[in-house]
């Protein structure tokens, strides 16, 4: 039996799994959000604000945002791996995407806690 050496970084299976686990979490959150929105008596500022102040909503949204950022990273990185061939440019774009995702994450927490 030929023992083949797998070349390259060994993150393939891990990312494949992460992409699916985060997707399931986001799908469940989407249902939760739809139920919460349909359950609002009126879509005015008070009800809208109160919805996002619920501890469950904050917790679920932080979980959703974390999954979204990881999911977006794997997805965008895959797109770059397919289309951006020059290594330097690709790595620069990776860095920009990572910074953007961190920015989105911090921003989300700021919005949720009304800083």
């Amino acid at each position, binding site marked *: 039996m030929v023992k083949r050496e797998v070349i390259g970084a060994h993150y393939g299976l891990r990312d494949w799994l992460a992409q*699916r686990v985060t*997707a*399931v979490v986001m*799908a469940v959150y*989407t249902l939760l959000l739809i139920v919460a929105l349909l359950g609002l008596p009126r879509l005015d*500022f008070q009800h*809208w*604000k109160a919805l*996002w102040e619920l501890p469950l909503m904050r917790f679920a949204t932080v979980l959703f945002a974390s999954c979204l950022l990881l999911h*977006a990273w794997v*997805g*965008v990185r895959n*797109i770059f791996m397919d289309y951006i061939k020059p290594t330097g440019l690709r790595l620069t774009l990776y860095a920009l995407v990572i910074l*953007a995702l961190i920015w*989105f994450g911090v*921003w*989300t927490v*700021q*919005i949720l806690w*009304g800083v």
Partner: protein
Amino acid sequence: MPRTRPKHLDLTKIRLPLPALVSILHRVSGAALFLCMPFLLWLWQESLASQQRFEQFKGVASLWAVKLVLIGLLWAYLHHLCAGIRHLALDLDIGTELAAARASSWAVLVVSLGLTLVAGVMIW
């Protein structure tokens, strides 16, 4: 005599099979959602900042161009969601036969467009 095979690598001449169309739209919708994330976060922030800014947010969100963009993004989200669920099923070896794969591709397109239409009417 050398055989001249038809090579249609010209993108405008390639006819995508339905599952391939769903697949590339999955990628396009994901990229669009990523690129529009700052816009969505900004809208969300404005809607929660204060009563006054909530009213301003409603004003912005009721512009027809903004509505159109939001409905487009809603479609992107729903298509990405539906195509993702299909993908998970394929991973579990469900629906990998050609006929089933075509049928589920149709289902992804129809369901995501249908839900967008329903939500779009509600928003408008």
